[in-house]
């Protein structure tokens, strides 16, 4: 059953990735959006590996499996796009945005708190340590997603127009975290359905926001 959930995630990420390739790789598009497309592609490859591992092995390996790198890679792409490309445009480092920077720390702190709960409940073992590593990258990316969601727009609507994308990315991060926390098939199914919806919506939502950059 879990294999089908993994397959659904692969297909959803695949749809998002192919859509991104078609829309943003025919002409010269911003590196920002290309990195996000690669992030969705990375998620697709990670989920594909997990699906195939279910198919071939019957179950995932306990602890670390290469599929987890898909989630790590995708959040690294999102983080790189936001930190490397967008952040220097929307935040000039002035004290004006100090409050925003502090509030944005809530996102990584929530991730850290969840990690702490997991470690207290289950201890440090081969299952929880890889989750901790995954959460570290998730926390990095979520800081910028929250920051860009709440930051005052001083860049002619640049960041305001892609707030929906940043909100989706935060939701996706929360759903990825909850994968480890949920027990039983029905909660896992709900999380998967939501994740699929987010993965499919990622690129079209970003595209809709980006259209406002040129109008």
């Amino acid at each position, binding site marked *: 059953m879990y294999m089908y959930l993994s397959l659904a995630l692969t297909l959803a990420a695949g749809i998002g990735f192919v859509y991104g390739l078609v829309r943003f790789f025919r002409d010269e598009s911003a590196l920002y959006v290309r990195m996000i497309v690669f992030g969705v592609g990375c998620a697709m490859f990670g989920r*594909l590996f997990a699906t195939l591992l279910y*198919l*071939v092995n019957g179950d995932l390996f306990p602890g670390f499996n*290469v599929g987890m790198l898909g989630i790590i890679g995708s959040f*690294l792409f999102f*983080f790189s796009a936001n930190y490397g490309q967008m952040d220097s445009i929307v935040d000039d480092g002035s004290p004006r945005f100090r409050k925003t920077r502090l509030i944005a720390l809530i996102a990584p702190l929530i991730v850290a708190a969840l990690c702490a709960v997991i470690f207290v409940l289950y201890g440090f073992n081969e299952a929880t340590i890889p989750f901790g590593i995954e959460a570290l990258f998730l926390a990095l990316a979520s800081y910028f997603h929250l920051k860009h969601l709440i930051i005052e727009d001083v860049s002619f609507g640049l960041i305001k127009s892609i707030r929906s994308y940043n909100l989706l990315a935060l939701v996706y991060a929360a759903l990825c975290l909850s994968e480890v926390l949920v027990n039983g098939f029905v909660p896992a199914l709900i999380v998967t359905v939501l994740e699929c919806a987010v993965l499919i919506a990622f690129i079209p939502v970003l595209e809709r926001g980006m259209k406002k950059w040129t109008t």
Partner: protein
Amino acid sequence: MDNLTYIDFICVAVSLALMLPLMEKKLRHLVVFMIVGISSCLFVSELNNIFLEMFHNEMFYVTTTITPVTEEIIKMIPILYYAIVISDDRRALIPNAFAVGVGFALLENVVILTQNVENVTIFWALVRVFGSGLVHGICTVMVGWGISYIKKRRKFFYCGTFALLSAAIIYHATYNLLVQSDYQYIGVLLPIVTYIPIILLLRKKGIKAN
């Protein structure tokens, strides 16, 4: 008998190295990178043996979880070095990156051939070349191509490199997983299906300078 891997390495790498003084600069770079790829394979084979012992010879686990990680990290180092120290020009980086992958696959195939010389067939050779040969090449090209984009932007560089490495590891592990399963034909098709669009795209548009 001495270690076969080292014998294979000497036979292949030294022959190529002897050609180097006769070559022009561009071609020499390619062959140097092939030799670097061959040397990486030698190093990784020792490393993988250690991991195989560490994980009690669980071949399936090691080849789907550990070796993709070690191989891709070791193969990435020369590409990273070239991009940082020598040039990040895409027109040089992509062919050189592919040469590292091909060199790696070359020694890997020769070692497997010499270890199973009585069982190999023409079909085996075709599967190795179009399967693992292409996988190694595609993974290094993926990393080299990506690095050429992110190298100049310091904020992108560290995370972007790790993300590219993750993508290459997953691709490699997926291939290793499939070829050891009942779906090995899909595994062999995976690199071919990936390679053809890449080549068509590069032939159509050419490799643009940064």
